């Protein structure tokens, strides 16, 4: 940039002073000083970096919102630091007060920055570009040339014709133009690219609306997860969810009372050698009842094709197996009889699960490794080689003792706390097998294999406004980065010999712009218009 302070920069420019001024005395002065500091560009910059840094711990530490069990384990394993971090909100970073403080300050800063700039911009949109500075030759893009004398026109006439031609040409190319005359000739001043600032303001304002939309969705929305076995179903009430979270103003008792039955879950995997095992199809056939007493209808939910109901959308998010197991105690009583959900660990659905039979005496627990298509090798041990249930097998390890369910600590149903238990055996089983446990403590039967599908059900009234805000932000951003805001001046004067001299100069507010094309166009018009 040639000039240290280009005339185009608005007075309400982000305060760019390098050394902050000290706070003045007096309450009013102090407040005003605080406000200026908060809305300065440097503060915005620092707050942006604070936001980036503050977001990091949430990606490293387990978070309550996604995995509360893991959080509890983490805290238990770090007795000194765990509770401290917990109290400071490190296991729920994005809801922590200090995280909110940063982005709220940032947004106050944005508002404090955008409002005065908007006022200034509106004023700028209504004023005409000012006349040329006296010394045009100091600007980066500057040309000076004499017009060939024209016998039909006086010098003054030639100047007027030239400037008129330039002005009307610029106007037709949507420049804002002002025009003036002086004793030696005249001038045209033109400005273009106001949408750069408009876009910038739009962008910052859209960010504020984005935050509002997100908050609106968080306050009035809810989301739950549920695993449904084939043939099973669920209705939209709090108790049926495996996990549920709602906004502050959502009552869990007043959810839309739809219900869904999973009639069939279809999966298909590629069997061709090169891509063996890659999934081709996940499809959940469901029967939906929008509300009790209303007519049922059937639907198919696929990944990326959720089911849209009035109050919520139902998404297919996962699938797996549920081998049906029957556990009998020493007396032959069935203390467990259910399709037990196992959780996939890899692409071939090598899955692990846990069965707890607290009613057996003594209590029984089983860890299972379920393999839809079983294989065993020396390196990887037992594993599955294909995700479909071609050749299912299960490795079951049996434990006896205290399941630890009575001490009040919440336990995952997918994890066996073996601290107070002893292992009594390990067995490989196929569907139909019955394993009589050692010492006659009971038996376990592997009946058959079913599937499960997991659904996420969500209601977010803020997402459409959020999308609109994000779209506006993107458009504003592109305007603000790609539009060149620039001024062009054309001035005529006379030489001593009576010829008309034309000077053209251009200036951009930002140093990235290349103004040669604009000046070339103006020069062509000036030369053409005088002829």
């Amino acid at each position, binding site marked *: 940039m040639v000039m240290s302070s280009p005339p185009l920069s608005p007075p309400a420019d982000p305060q*760019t002073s390098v050394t902050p001024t000290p706070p003045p005395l007096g309450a009013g002065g102090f407040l005003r000083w605080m406000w200026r500091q908060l809305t300065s560009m440097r503060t915005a910059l620092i707050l942006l970096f604070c936001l*980036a840094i503050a977001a990091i711990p949430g990606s490293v530490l387990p978070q309550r919102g996604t995995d509360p069990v893991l959080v509890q384990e983490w805290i238990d394993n770090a007795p000194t630091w765990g509770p401290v971090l917990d109290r400071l909100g490190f296991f729920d970073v994005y809801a922590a007060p200090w995280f909110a403080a940063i982005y709220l300050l940032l947004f106050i800063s944005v508002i404090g920055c955008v409002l005065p700039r908007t006022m200034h911009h509106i004023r700028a949109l209504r004023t005409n570009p000012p006349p040329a500075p006296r010394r045009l030759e100091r600007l980066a893009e500057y040309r000076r040339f004499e017009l060939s004398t024209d016998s039909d026109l006086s010098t003054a006439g030639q100047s007027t014709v030239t400037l008129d031609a330039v002005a009307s040409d610029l106007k037709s190319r949507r420049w804002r133009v002002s025009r003036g005359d002086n004793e030696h000739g005249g001038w045209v001043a033109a400005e273009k690219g106001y949408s750069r600032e408009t876009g910038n303001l739009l962008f910052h304002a859209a960010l504020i609306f984005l935050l509002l939309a997100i908050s609106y969705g968080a306050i009035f929305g809810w989301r739950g997860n549920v695993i449904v076995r084939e043939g099973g179903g669920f209705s939209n009430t709090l108790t049926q969810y495996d996990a549920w979270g709602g906004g502050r103003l959502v009552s869990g008792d007043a959810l839309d009372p739809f219900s869904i039955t999973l009639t069939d879950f279809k999966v298909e995997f590629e069997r061709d050698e090169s891509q063996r095992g890659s999934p081709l199809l996940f499809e959940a056939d469901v029967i939906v009842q929008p509300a009790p007493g209303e007519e049922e209808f059937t639907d198919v939910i696929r990944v*990326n094709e959720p089911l849209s109901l009035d109050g919520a959308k139902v998404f297919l998010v996962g699938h797996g197996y549920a081998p049906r197991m029957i556990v009998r105690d020493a007396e032959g009583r069935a203390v467990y009889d259910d399709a037990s959900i196992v959780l996939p660990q890899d692409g071939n659905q090598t899955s692990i699960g846990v069965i707890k039979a607290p009613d057996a005496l003594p209590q029984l627990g089983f860890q299972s490794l379920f393999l839809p298509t079983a294989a065993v090798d020396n390196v990887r041990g037992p594993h599955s080689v294909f995700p479909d249930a071609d050749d299912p097998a299960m490795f079951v390890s049996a434990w006896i003792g205290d399941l630890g369910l009575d001490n009040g600590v919440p336990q995952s149903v997918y994890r066996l706390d073996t601290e107070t238990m002893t292992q009594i055996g390990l067995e490989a089983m196929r569907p139909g097998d019955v394993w009589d446990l050692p010492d006659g403590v009971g038996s376990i039967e592997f009946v058959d294999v079913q599937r499960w599908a997991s659904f996420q059900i969500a209601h977010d009234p803020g997402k459409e406004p959020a999308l609109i805000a994000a779209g506006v932000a993107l458009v504003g951003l592109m305007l603000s980065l790609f539009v060149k805001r620039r001024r062009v001046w054309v001035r005529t004067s006379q030489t001593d010999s009576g010829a008309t001299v034309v000077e053209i100069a251009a200036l951009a507010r930002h140093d990235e712009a290349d103004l040669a094309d604009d000046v070339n166009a103006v020069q062509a018009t000036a030369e053409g218009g005088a002829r």
Partner: protein
Amino acid sequence: MTSASLAEWSNAAVYASMVVLTLSMVAFAVNFSARGTRGTQRSATVTTAMPIAVAVGAGGNEPVASPVAEVIDDPRGRRAGNIGLALAWLAFGLLLLGTTLRGVWAGRVPWGNMYEYSLSSAVAILGVYLIWSTRRDLRFLGLLVTGATLLTLGLAVTVLYTEAAQLVPALKSWWLIIHVSAAAVCGGAFTVAAAMAGLYLWRERAERKNSVTGSVAKLPTASKLDMMTYRILAFAFPLWTFAVIAGAIWAENAWGRYWGWDPKETWAFITWVIYAGYLHARATAGWRGRRAAYIALLGWVSFLINYFGVNLFVNSLHSYAGV
């Protein structure tokens, strides 16, 4: 052609590309170390390779701001640079072929796992550089860019190579295709910008110490490097914004929420915030130049953490290697 041989052809093209790229890197290294400087001396063999600044009238070529910035290579160095560029184009073609064949073999877009994603990233880095180099003389950047591309490919074929081409149906979405391709192009642009910012810091230090000699003298001036870093980031930032929005739309469609602070999303956000910081820094007195360049490097580090760290070490919904 059987699918097995398609995969083999893909691998062969990738390896061939790496060989050509290595030669290209050597040529760029010669170009860089050969004697001759930009601007500080004038000799008779000069300037024909560069668009000459057009003073008045006819536009066309991008005018070079000041004659001091003109390239004054010795002929040997210039030839090496041209060879490097030509080889880089050849390597780019081979890489594009390899990546496309991989996609044809898999019957889908070639980013189902980290191996394929690395191939696409390498295409993006090299592509951004080469396309930009059609508009400017960027031979000084060739060494770093070919190096970064080779490193990406090296990691891809050694550490990340996977035969199994798993593609969960979750990836069958137009939004995801848009999201990933935009992110890959951004990755290329961020990498090129980081290389540029690194060179800026080197050159700026030399200018400050008044010791612009040797290889550093072959670089454009610090203020030009700063400007070019800005240009590429001003292109990449809206694209990154768009990539994040597209990702959110797809996440809403597939998982039922558009934002969940999943580690991948978190680092995408951090990266976005850092580059927003970069743009603000350039508009703030006292933060231009050196500090802005450090921020550009920081943004790139954050992008890399998102790419490698989150895919390999963190349990994220985005870890497609398995599930």
